[in-house]
């Protein structure tokens, strides 16, 4: 049973296609991670689910409701923690939570109890009565998370919740998310931190260019790769022709699979090996064709490898590539009411 269903979502900002037929199913009570570089379409998808943005086309279901039609009831069921923390600098943390409680129509006793509960849980008592303008990034994020949770939503949506945070704040937030997951709150979290998704998510989807390119449980996705990840370079600065020749050679070795040329990393070759014997014999195979091993690394598969396998580039390279193409001014203008 799914709490969120997205079907064929399309959304563009002028010439930039942010969502390109996105489909997603988030199971009830799960902590679901959306992984992808900045600009892949994660925030746009989350803003559509929160009813802050209308898609160009597609279907959005939240908790059995058509979120594009029954917007108010959808809002009642979800809590949203945005990527850019929006707080009123003049209010104190407590006043901001009280305002939030009134916007969600909590009665005064329930509101007071919930605020105290969250202040305690997120360890905010020392500074909650100070003005928000004096808060650090971590404090603001914790306060924002408390705001999102004040009305005890069935669904919590977090957009890059730990970007730029100190270790203490990150640990407090991770702890709370794990606790909420155990209490069957459905959590949808976007991140471009691999370790965050790996650590927290029950299930995940990798988003690239506005669509889901892989999804499942993080461990299953890594296991699907079928072996250990090897990165090989035959020269410090190689080229496409040489990399293709090495790829052709390596593909034919028994126990090697999923060979990918990584252009962004100097035409290195990434592939999977079933056992260490393959590696021992690798230099022999290469020398037959007059290639040498310039650099070789060997590791257990990570989510970055899953991403690399699906897209042909690492998450970091994808981010650098997308950063140059994004029109932030246009995106801000389009997303501002």
């Amino acid at each position, binding site marked *: 049973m799914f709490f969120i269903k997205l079907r064929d979502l399309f959304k563009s900002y002028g010439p930039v296609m942010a969502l390109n037929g996105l489909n997603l199913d988030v199971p009830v009570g799960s902590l679901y991670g959306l992984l992808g570089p900045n600009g892949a379409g994660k925030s746009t998808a989350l803003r559509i689910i*929160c*009813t*802050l943005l209308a898609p160009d086309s597609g279907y959005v279901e939240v908790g059995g409701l058509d979120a594009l039609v029954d917007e*108010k*009831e959808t*809002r*009642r069921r*979800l809590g*949203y923690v*945005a990527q*850019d923390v*929006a*707080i*009123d600098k*003049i*209010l104190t943390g407590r*006043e901001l939570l*009280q*305002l*939030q409680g*009134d*916007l*969600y*129509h909590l009665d005064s006793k329930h509101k007071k109890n919930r605020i105290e509960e969250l202040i305690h849980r997120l360890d905010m008592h020392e500074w909650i009565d100070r*003005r928000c303008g004096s808060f650090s990034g971590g404090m603001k994020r914790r306060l924002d998370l408390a*705001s999102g949770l004040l009305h005890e939503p069935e669904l919590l949506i977090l957009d890059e919740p730990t970007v730029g945070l100190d270790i203490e704040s990150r640990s407090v937030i991770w702890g709370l998310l794990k606790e909420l997951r155990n209490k069957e709150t459905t959590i949808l979290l976007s991140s471009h931190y691999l370790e965050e998704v790996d650590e927290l998510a029950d299930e995940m989807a990798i988003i690239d260019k506005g669509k889901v390119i892989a999804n499942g449980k993080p461990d299953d996705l890594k296991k699907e790769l079928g072996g250990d990840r090897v990165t090989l370079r035959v020269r410090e600065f190689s080229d496409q022709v040489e990399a293709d020749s090495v790829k052709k050679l390596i593909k034919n070795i028994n126990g090697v699979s999923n060979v990918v040329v990584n252009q962004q990393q100097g035409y290195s070759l990434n592939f999977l090996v079933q056992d260490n014997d393959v590696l021992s014999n690798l230099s022999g195979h290469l020398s037959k064709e007059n290639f040498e091993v310039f650099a070789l690394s060997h590791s257990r598969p990570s989510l970055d490898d899953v991403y690399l396998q699906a897209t042909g580039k690492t998450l970091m390279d994808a981010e650098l590539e997308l950063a140059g193409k994004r029109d932030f001014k246009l995106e801000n*203008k389009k997303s*501002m*009411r």
Partner: protein
Amino acid sequence: MITTHQSINKDKQSGNNLNEMFQEISALTWRLFIQLIRRPSTLVAGILQPLIWLLLFAALFSNAPIDFLPGSSSYGEFLGAGLIVFTAFSGALNAGLPLMFDREFGFLNRLLVAPLSSRSSIVISSVIYITTISLLQSFAIMLTSASLGYGWPSMAGFLLIAVTLLLLVFAITALSLGLAFVLPGHIELIAIIFIANLPVLFASTALAPISFMPEWLGWIASINPLTFAIEPIRMAYHNTVDLRLVLISAPYGEVNGYSCLAILFILTVGLFFLIRPLLNRKLA
């Protein structure tokens, strides 16, 4: 029987909606007042500026021939009504600024993602806040004006002043809120406020009667909304509250007190209707 149950449920639901809307509006308005209490500089500046004008202009033109100032015994008394309206006008023109900052800094999204009973609550709270502030500032000018010996209106006059100011403040607030959603940022909104403020004052009967002006300026002054607010207030200060009296001798004809209020009312309703589709679209 089913119909009865349905109608009871409907009544209960609309009662809940009203309660929820009241809770939202109270909370949002209270937020604006907290901001004001902790940063009172705009309130103080809004009172100080017209006060300085009152002191300086009244002194500057203290020897102006009284015959040219219909119904007034001094220039200070003549000027008082203009500055009361100017204070309310300036205050209302700033109504869009808090909303613009909320748009720019993303706080509006926090409000829009909440299950508000009505998104009009955001606009209504702004109107309540700015109306209260504008009236407070105008009242401060009235008190100062009275302490300088420029008179105090009767009860009926006071009521007329309140109604006139409310109509003007509602109209200009609607305009400012509309601009806050149309313009790309606060710099542009401040620029418009800066450009509009003084020319609108000078092109009204706040500082001089129409008979003092060249014909072209007389035309502008006699269609300026500020003039339609200034003249009823000036009448209120003369302690003759009779809306049938001609208050403006405009180049296009004579305008009495009823017409002044009717024009302000039409302007207010017209501007709210004009910005309604915009608000519906932006807050949808």
